[in-house]
């Protein structure tokens, strides 16, 4: 036998035992915002979570939400810092919403060097690649972006993914557009729409903001109880790696990053004055 593998297997077993008793090794993670916290929403690590976009046009928002959740799940212990995130993406998503961009990932808080991107041609290939990846305990998290709800994405397929996630401890997120309610074996299911952000100085668009609806919460063994569901408006703070409650009326004051281009350089669009408008194609 290979001693290195034996030691690693023992360590994984110990980690499993420790997780139940020792404080510090968290088996659950929260969103970090007060609203869901009060509702008792905690997500299990080493489980399959589903993030649905309410419509096709909401996919960018759902993608951001799923990535933010993955980042929350990956912040566990110092020893696991630097574990990569594996993102399985169907070609169709790339054609529809563009390719992933490194600076954009940094802007959400993920170091692009930690991302392994796998491009798959169709839903079947996505699930096969995901099925392999979810067994790899060296991954920090797994993001499965599939186009629509293909036939192969059924109860059996998601159950298999969920079981493998449990045994390997890789927190996995299934990201797709909700077509019709399909039976999937997931720990939590979210439906996401974009929300108007809290504006920055000069009425600039603010941090990524979402309307997130918790459709399903199965709870978990010892810790999280099933939650009825809820509806929150949240924004993502990429510096603190946390969600914040967003009250659309209160207009939360958010600090402005220093690297922002100077808005004063551009003349303000002033209401009530005659503006020279022009249509260009």
């Amino acid at each position, binding site marked *: 036998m290979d*001693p*290195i*593998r034996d*030691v*690693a297997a023992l360590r*994984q077993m110990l980690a499993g035992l420790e997780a139940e008793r020792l404080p510090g090794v968290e088996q659950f993670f929260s969103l970090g915002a007060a609203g869901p916290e009060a509702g008792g929403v905690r997500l299990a690590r080493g489980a399959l979570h589903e993030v649905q976009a309410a419509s096709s046009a909401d996919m*960018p*928002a759902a993608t*951001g*939400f799923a*990535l933010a959740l993955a980042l929350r799940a990956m912040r566990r212990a110092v*020893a696991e810092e630097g574990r990569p995130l*594996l993102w399985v993406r169907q070609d169709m998503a790339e054609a529809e919403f*563009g*390719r*992933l*961009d*490194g*600076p*954009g990932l*940094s*802007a959400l808080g993920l*170091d*692009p*060097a930690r*991302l*392994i991107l*796998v*491009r*798959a041609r169709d839903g079947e290939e996505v699930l096969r*690649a995901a099925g*392999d*990846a979810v067994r*790899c*305990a*060296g*991954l920090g998290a797994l993001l499965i972006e599939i186009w629509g709800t293909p036939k192969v994405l059924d109860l059996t397929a998601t159950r298999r993914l969920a079981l493998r996630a449990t045994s390997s401890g890789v927190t996995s997120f299934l990201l797709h557009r909700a077509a019709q309610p399909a039976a999937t074996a997931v720990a939590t299911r979210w439906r996401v729409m*974009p929300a*108007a*952000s809290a*504006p920055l100085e*000069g009425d*600039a*668009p603010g941090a*990524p903001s*979402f309307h997130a609806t918790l459709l399903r919460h199965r709870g978990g063994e010892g810790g999280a109880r099933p939650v009825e569901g809820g509806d929150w408006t949240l924004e993502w703070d*990429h510096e603190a790696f946390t969600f914040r409650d967003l009250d659309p009326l209160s207009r939360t004051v958010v600090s402005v*990053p*220093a*690297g*922002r*281009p100077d*808005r004063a*350089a*551009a003349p303000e*669009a002033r209401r009530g004055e005659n503006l*020279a*408008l*022009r249509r*260009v194609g």
Partner: protein
Amino acid sequence: MSAEGVRGGEGSGPQTDDPFAPAPLVFVEKVQNALRLAALDRAARRAGLVPGLTLADARARVPGLAVLDHDPAADAAFLEEVADDCDRWTPLVALDTPEGVPDGLVLDITGCAHLFGGEVVLRARLLSHLQRHGLGALAVIAGTPDAARALARSGKGGVVLPGGEAQAVAGLPVARLGVSTEIVTGLSRAGLKTIGDLAARPGTPLAARFGRELLTRLARTLGREDVRLVPRRPLPECIAERRFAEPIARTADIEATLALLVDDLALMLEARGEGGRAFEACFFRTDGAVRRLKIETARPLRDGVALARLWHERIEALADPLDPGFGFDLVRLGVMRAEKLTPAQVSLDGRAVEEEEVAALIDRLAVRLGRERVLRFLQRDTHDPDRASALVPADGVSTLSPALTPPEVPARPLTLFDPPQPVEALAEVPDGPPLRFRWRRVVHEVARAEGPERLAPEWWRQPEAAPTRDYYRVENREGRRFWLFRAGLYEREAQGEAGPPRWFLHGLFP
């Protein structure tokens, strides 16, 4: 060193000696507006025809001549196939191109002959193998490729014993040395008709009259000087192979064979302290066709189990399955690129094992989906959003480059369109943000906007001056966020320097 010239593949068709063969067959090509014979079969040769004769003359001599067009490209392709098949005898196979046209093969069988029972047996087996595929060939084994070539092209066959080259080639005409026609003419005018005549003369006057080239050729042909072949394919670092008396055809058998070969290779690599980064498997079909498969790995690898799994994935992922025909009688596995592989330090936190697992996963996915589908980001230090990050195959990135994360991350979209998508926008001139735009037939009313962020193109990359871009981050009434830019400036248009500015959607924010 032994070398062997195989003369084969002349003409596109098999050369048969069948008594029922309908008619002498010739291949013609157009030379200076006349159809001339380019190649002929044996029957035609017996009828007294020679290459270079005009077709009209040939028809006059042999009335019932079958004529086909000469196709040099098909000949060359066919010879390549034969050469591929000859890989089964030795990995060192070279094409013989005496007049710029490949029409023979040279095999370096140094150290291989004993595997087949000696040179005489190897030659006999090679000839019967070719004959089974309908090929007539002349084969000579000699100490140098030039000697073998000269003998084979003179229509001789057989094995030249070591040291016997000078005697064997002595009677051949000087044209067989492979020197230019002027030299051949000059030599024959001087009365030097055979290689033996030349060999008997002192070298210095010959070199003074005809150049050193002649002496070099002479020495090589006489077996006094050796020359290395340039093989058609890169040589593997090490190879393992299995030959089968009874060809195998089932995928399970093929995979089992590969698993055995992988174990053989693992032992060789371990002895060298190396691991393989690129592997190639060659499957030799009984009918002479050869199929090659390659895999590349993210790290030096010599673990038999992991390699066998990769080959399983590779064969399973084939778009056109491995067609065994009547079966494979030889499977060869070679390491094309090897790197140092030192045993890893066992760290107690299991970190090395985790990295190993991720690397194994990358290999598996890359073998199944293709290298260009398993990617990692490479950051570039540039302000051009199109070039700021690049995706490269994950197995090529051995050490992760330190991330270029500035203290403040600029607001950049998560996804970028490549190329940017044109939109129809209504905006305040000269440089106000868009108030409304239409993208994919949907009109978006802008609620909030920020900008412009002016990004000039990198003039040192693009000689054609691309227009300056003014970027705006906008949010519509539903809360969707977009990254739009205006290509070009209104002032420039007003000054008549450029066309009207146009609007594009470049990316989407979450």
